[in-house]
């Protein structure tokens, strides 16, 4: 449309083509190296850790231990997947642990229903758990976006509300004696790996595809970087800001089912502190707490790193308390590395 009417083009494109060509390849190479470094840093740390534990910790490489690690990582990985969406848009969700307990209690009641045939009860329980999670997420997201309140405060409130609700559902009783078919899922293996871990892997894969390959994911990143610019470009930012909390709730609902199947019980005190593990996995994975930068692959590696670290330290006979201190140190270290990386990016601008 424009090209025909431009006799006075200030400088022809062709005149600069060589200069641009070399500069382009250099810049492209640089961003590639940068990207590899960003994701590889945590991967290298994980490999190093595995190598150290494999040579120092007894039985670390046993098949049963590897299965154990994968099982331990599963719940955190599921929760951290949803958390990545929330943090990428510049928010935080502190309520995931409590919502997990609430969803588990409601789903537990459905599972124990005597009027329903077992398969129907299980299907309904899964549906219920996911619904509870998503509704809590919707409430979080709506309040955060509609009144523009910090998600930190809103989800801190929800942390208490959902925990109270979880206790209220059964009056603080623990539910157990679920159908055997349901409990079997918690220990089932598929192709040699725990089935529940595969559930987590599928979730991560779907989440990764959504974030990197869809319009939805593109806008999550864009809003995380500059919400006002996205709004002024004609997008409904409200929708996306609510949606990430609903996604977080969805993963919590799935996490509740998986966790119940593994433990074969549902207790209202389930999942306390899970929010911090999930946030730690996301941060160690290199996602910026300011939003807009990071990836689910990083989160996956971050969750694995936390799991491997905990398991390896146990095998080496490190006590519970010291283990907690070390895990905390790793989180702080990850944030320091991230800030160093950000500074490096600024310097090379």
């Amino acid at each position, binding site marked *: *449309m*424009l*090209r025909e*009417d*431009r006799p*006075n*083009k*200030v*400088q022809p*494109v062709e005149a*600069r083509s060589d200069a*641009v060509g070399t*500069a*382009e390849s*250099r*810049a*492209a190479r*640089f*961003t590639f190296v940068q990207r590899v470094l960003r994701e590889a840093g945590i991967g290298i740390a994980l490999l190093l850790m595995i190598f150290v534990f494999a040579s120092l910790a007894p039985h670390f490489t046993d098949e049963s231990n590897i299965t154990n690690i994968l099982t331990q990582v599963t719940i955190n990985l599921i929760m951290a997947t949803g958390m990545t969406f929330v943090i990428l848009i510049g928010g935080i969700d502190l309520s995931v642990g409590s919502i997990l307990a609430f969803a588990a209690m409601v789903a537990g009641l459905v599972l124990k229903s005597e009027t329903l045939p077992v398969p129907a009860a299980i299907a309904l329980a899964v549906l219920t758990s996911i619904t509870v999670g998503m509704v809590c997420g919707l409430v979080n997201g709506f309040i955060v976006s509609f009144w523009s309140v910090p998600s930190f405060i809103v989800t801190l409130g929800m942390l208490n509300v959902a925990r109270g609700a979880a206790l209220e559902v059964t009056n603080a009783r623990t539910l157990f004696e679920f159908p055997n078919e349901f409990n079997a899922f918690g220990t089932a293996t598929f192709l040699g790996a725990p089935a529940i871990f595969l559930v987590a892997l599928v979730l991560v894969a779907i989440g990764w595809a959504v974030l990197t*390959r*869809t*319009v*939805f994911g*593109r*806008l999550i*990143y*864009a809003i995380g*970087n*500059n919400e*006002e*610019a*996205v*709004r*002024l*470009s*004609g*997008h*409904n930012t409200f929708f996306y800001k609510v949606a990430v909390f609903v996604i977080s709730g969805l993963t919590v609902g799935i996490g509740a089912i998986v966790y119940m199947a593994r433990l074969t019980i549902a207790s209202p005190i389930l999942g306390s502190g899970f929010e911090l593990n999930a946030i730690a996995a996301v941060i160690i994975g290199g996602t910026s707490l300011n939003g*807009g*930068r990071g990836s689910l692959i990083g989160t996956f590696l971050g969750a694995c790193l936390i799991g491997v670290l905990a398991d390896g330290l146990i095998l080496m006979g490190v006590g519970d308390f010291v283990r907690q201190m070390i895990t905390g140190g790793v989180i702080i270290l990850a944030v320091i590395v991230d800030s160093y990386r950000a500074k490096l990016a600024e*310097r*090379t*601008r």
Partner: protein
Amino acid sequence: MPLNSKPDALLLELKGLTKRFPGVVALNAVDLSLAPGEIHALVGENGAGKSTLIKLLCGSYVPDAGEMQFDGAPYRPESPLDALKAGIRVVYQEFSLLPYLSVAENLLFDSLPRRYGLLVDYRKLHERARALLERVGLDVDPQTPVEHLGVAQCQLLEIGKALSFASRLLILDEPTATLTPREIGRLFGIIRDLRASGVTVIYVSHHLNEIFDLCDAVTVLRNGRRMVSLPVAATSPPEIVHLMVGRELEAALATHRTAAEPAPGPAALRVQDLRFRGNPHGISFTLCYGEIVGLAGLVGSGRTETLRAIFGADFRDGGEIYRHERRVRFDNPRDAVKHGVCLLTENRKEEGLVLPMPVRVNVTLTDLSRISQGGLLNARTEKTIAQKWVAELDMRIASLEQAAINLSGGNQQKLVMAKWLFRNAEVLMLDEPTRGIDVGAKAEIQDLLRRLAAAGKSILVVSSEVPELVALCDRILVLWRGQLAGEVQRQEATEERILSLACGESIAGAGAPSRNINEGHSHAQGRSPE
């Protein structure tokens, strides 16, 4: 006369200073010598390396090669603190004020007067602040919180802040962009006083008339290289422009529309009694296809507010908007964009672009449906489209993956235009599209607007540079305190006429504006040869 005991010794000497960034050499073996008590102008297009040079001097960047000598000793600043200690002070284009603290606290933040070593001595603080305010000619109460000040007042405050500190080298980066002629005159007086007391000043500006008025010498940078350093007396504005741009600017500017102008097309957008928030007056006007309409007015007259209210970016108190003579509701930017109306805001960095993301992403941000099927992005289509717009607008970038933050001001502005042209916007509202952009890029943007109008777009431009509006627009609407003071056709458009309307002379008679006039001084560049 300089007080320095060694009058012929240099204050600052740069040798082969080089700074590389991925894909570009921002500063390439630059030499520069500054004598004590010299006012030295630094000019060049955006991206020429001025900011990089300043950041090297003040310790924000570390050079890749080259040496700096300050006051006869090697100077290697590792941080801005080192620069401050050496006596180098910078007044940046972007303000570094603390909005919730008072004017006085901001002025003397680095050296608050104390009592008993702990408590702030507010009496002394306000006394000193008042003296500094008087010196820069800023008439505000030292206790006012900075958030209540206008842009021009903030600029004067920044200058006052720099004066609170006895520096050897003062670097001023575009200090006059928001000031009125009277304030500029006073600023020049202050700078000359500083020169008389031996302070060296580096003066960065796009306005050549200021440089020839004020400075002793001028250094021209282009593409990271020093083209020349000359005494001002030995050169002329056309020569400097030629050195900066490296091509004849006249060729770019000569594309001004010919007399045989086609009549404007049908009405594209009509605004009826629009009242932006807090404005009791209604504003009405019509935009037609194929014409460029200017919106002039003083700072605070409601130009930006009008555009934002039409676009739905801010709430309105009332008014109707008609698109193709059909009533439409623009409750938010989404509605406006859906109807082919777009706004390029005055802050392209904060509101126009997603700075950390690649050029490619910024181009396609306005209409992701066209680069996706069923919500899935098509990377190849996106790349092709982005490539097309980069070429179409002649953007100079290293790669489509380059983050928008690394582009020069002119290229960023083109990027914002690209994203709206990609969206097929038919009505383009632009707020200060050429602010902070160098001469060459400015001409290109103006040229682009003309071509867009010729291609049938309807364009509304807000600009503080009246000569630019006169050269660019078919007609100019003038705002005064939230009301339409008048409309000037192209044939009768002169700076004097527009300014008199903007000062409210047609409405209030004696209504002398209390707000700042920032359109008063003429600009040596950006003015059409007309």
